[in-house]
Each structure stands twice: as structure tokens, then as C-alpha cells.
């Protein structure tokens, strides 16, 4: 199951890239995707407690199931304005 991950601001800086493509087991949830990302990008470690996660543009809980082609976004604390 293919899932796109977008990383913004500090998350992008720490991962060294703004986009990842994950290939997950069917039936995977948000938390499974995050575990994959954390394994591949240990530089994100200090940021995890501060991140929000969106799936297809909506804030999502870790147990949310993912569908093929989902867009997951790692959102550091926001500072617009």
C-alpha cells in the first residue's frame, strides 16, 4: 500500500527532505507509518512530541487506518501570522 508523506518546516529540515514514499502492509494505520518514518529518519526523534499528523488534509489520530494513496503530513507547531 503506497502512502505519501509530506514533511514541513523543522520536520523537513530534520529529515533532509520534504516528501517520502512509503510502501506499507495493507491495513496499516497512522501509527505504523510513523514507526516507519521514525526508523528511516532518526533525526526526527526530538520533534515527535511536538508533531501533529494529518491524513488527506485532516488532523488524525494514530489509530486511524490508512488507504492506498493516502497523503500523510507531519506538521510541526504552527507559527503563521
Amino acid at each position: 500500500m503506497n502512502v505519501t508523506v509530506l514533511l514541513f518546516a523543522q520536520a523537513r529540515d530534520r529529515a533532509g527532505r520534504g516528501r517520502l514514499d512509503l510502501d506499507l502492509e495493507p491495513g496499516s494505520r497512522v501509527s505504523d507509518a510513523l514507526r516507519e518514518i521514525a526508523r528511516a529518519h532518526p533525526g526526527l526523534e526530538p520533534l515527535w512530541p511536538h508533531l501533529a499528523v494529518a491524513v488527506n488534509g485532516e488532523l488524525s489520530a494514530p489509530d486511524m487506518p490508512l488507504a492506498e494513496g493516502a497523503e500523510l503530513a507531519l506538521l510541526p507547531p504552527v507559527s503563521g501570522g
Partner: protein
Amino acid sequence: MAELVHVPIDSGQLARAAARPDCGAIAQFLGTTRDHHAGRRVASLTYEAYEPMALAALASIEAEAVTRFGVASCNIVHRLGEVPLAESSVAVTVASAHRVAAFDACRWAMDELKRSVPIWKRERFEDGDSEWVEGSKLGAGPDRP
């Protein structure tokens, strides 16, 4: 309608667009980029957004401002990319029959924007360093994976 733009914000044009013959008041807030933060000299600022989600969040603030305060309209424009010092990074424009509601809605929309819209600001300091500005965590975050 909410907008994200990569060019200077024309606040006068936004005010003219908001003006209506049935309204007596326009309150406008402009967030402008500052040359200092936490005691350091800032040389420039850059904004980025998760654009589709940010647009939806801004549109939802506009709509809630109208229903919550009974104003005629609320429009939010946020600039992205590099914003030179003293230029506007954001404009909130509210038209209303009366001024108290216009002020209240404008202020509320700005507070909401800072709290709930996926936009990030990076400051480049005069010493060459740059840093993402510490912000507000969106909604409830994920557990540590």
C-alpha cells in the same frame, strides 16, 4: 475567500473589496514582519504552508467569524515565501454593520489563525543563523511512535 499569495498584500484593495453599502465598519489587521525577536536582530522572514490544508483552515475561520460575530464578511490573506521586513505577512479584513463586532471578529480570527492553520515562519538572523519560530501544536498530536 481565503488566499495564500506569493506577492505583496494590497491591504487597500482588500478593504475596497470588503466595503458594502449596508455596512458601516471595516476592521483590518495586518501582521507585519519585525526586525527583532527574542533579543536578536532579524534580517528576513520566510513563510511556508501545507497549502490545501491551510486554505481550508483559513476558510473555516472566515466562515466561523461570520456566524459567531454576525459580521457581513471576513477575508484572510496570508503571504508565503520571503517577506521583507515591515511588509505584511497576513491581512484579516472584516466588514460589519457596526464597529464592535468588526473589531471582535478581526481579533478572534487572528488568534485562531495563529493557533490552527498549518503555516510556519522561519527567521533568518543578522548573524546568518536561521530558525523556525516556536509555534503552537496543532490539535492533539500523535503518540511517540
